[in-house]
């Protein structure tokens, strides 16, 4: 009886304890996340304030003001993927695997769009700062989609082999792909995947046309 009682009490207590512990951990994480977000916002506010004071002090000087606006345009274009970038990173080649079937050359499977989609997503998760697939820069609007035997990237058609270039921490990028049971492992079953680190990779800017027909600024521009 003593044993049973003891066990019972203990169980009840444990459940209560771990639930509240879980809840506390969850809340702590949320607090940390919000703190980080607010910090990022504060940094951005300081940046904006600095830019405004630059605008104000340059107001009398036409050359200086013009320079400011061009600098700002260049900075944003860099963030948007409209500037060529270079740096260390990895180059991933993806090709079909050849096998001999009844003495004839055959492939296991063609490269599918979602193979590339997963690789790009994994590189992004590993902190890639700029990515291009067959020199098509991956930007916010880039699709990687099948169209018949081709794969369409930024509205242009491609087929295997594919070369994915990513700038970022080469070790992290490589490790993320080569993770046991990771993407490269999965795809390696039916595709030929090669990953190599490089000291300097050049990633071209987005070459398509930008045309916003539907998106409008939220605030009325008083201009």
């Amino acid at each position, binding site marked *: 009886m*003593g*044993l049973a009682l*003891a066990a019972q*009490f*203990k169980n009840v*207590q*444990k459940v*209560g304890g771990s*639930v*509240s*512990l879980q*809840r*506390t951990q969850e*809340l*702590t994480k*949320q*607090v940390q996340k*919000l703190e980080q977000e*607010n910090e*990022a*916002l*504060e940094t*951005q506010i300081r940046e904006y304030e600095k830019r405004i004071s630059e*605008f104000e002090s340059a107001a009398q000087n036409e050359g200086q003001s*013009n320079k400011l*606006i*061009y600098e*700002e*345009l*260049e900075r*944003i274009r*860099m*963030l*948007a*993927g409209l*500037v060529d970038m*270079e*740096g*260390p990173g990895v180059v991933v080649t993806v090709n079909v695997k050849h096998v001999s079937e009844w003495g004839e050359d055959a492939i296991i499977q063609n490269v599918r769009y979602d193979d590339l989609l*997963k690789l790009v997503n994994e590189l992004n*998760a590993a902190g*890639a*700062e*700029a990515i291009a697939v067959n020199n098509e*820069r*991956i930007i*916010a*609007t880039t*699709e*990687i989609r099948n169209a018949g035997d081709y794969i369409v990237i930024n509205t242009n058609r491609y087929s295997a082999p594919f070369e994915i270039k990513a*700038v970022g*921490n080469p070790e992290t990028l490589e490790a993320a792909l080569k993770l046991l049971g990771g993407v490269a492992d999965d795809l390696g079953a039916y595709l030929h995947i090669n990953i190599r680190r490089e000291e300097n990779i050049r990633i071209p800017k987005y070459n398509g046309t*930008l045309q*916003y027909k*539907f*998106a409008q600024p*939220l*605030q009325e*521009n008083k*201009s």
Partner: protein
Amino acid sequence: MSLKKEYLVISIMCAFLSFFLVKTFGNQVYSYDIGESTSVKKIQELMNQLEKLENSKEELLERLQKLEAKISDHEAVIAENIYKGEEIQKQLFEARVLAGLTDIQGPGVEIILNDRKKDNIMPGEMYSITDFIVHDSDLLEVINELKAAGAEAIGINGVRILGNSRISCGGPTINVGDDQRFAPPFVIHAIGDPDALAGYFQRADSIYHILTFYGLEFSIKKLDNVRIPRYYGEVDFKYAKPVKED
């Protein structure tokens, strides 16, 4: 003699009982300690902290928007006196939209993606439960299809999707963008031609058919006006540098 034996047995049993009782109560006091301080006080404390942070986030966003408006005023003034000033302003806007640095609005669609409801799963169904929940790869496909359909901007649960946004699995949640974790339902907003965006999911190879086949909720609503907030995180380049043209 036999009486002594019984006493012995009873006293041993008593000893056991008291040992276990003491042990549990001891534990209980200990648990209560954690329980009380973490579950009630600590949680309350954290909730208060969250609320405060939530409030200050709103204030910060308001300030940011005011500053943004001020900057675009300055830019407009400069653009008036600049060669091809209007073109430069247009380029600034386009680059900001692409980089996710400005709140935008326009016509588009709202997609709601949710796990299948438990009560409409038939007992005889021969599928695994994982077929009935939204996976990171599903979300990735939906976003990719919206891009292919010509979406100009996309947001998931209020998080702006950029070129380097990842969508990955975080156990029961899905990580979107930098490090935002969400559980279903997922509310996806996209700005673009509403007919083209909604129509894309009617294509035979769309993920729509697979997910709805398994009974997941996948609703698409065309809207005259969709608002998508800017990206709030920091973007900085540690490894990538702009190529210097010589």
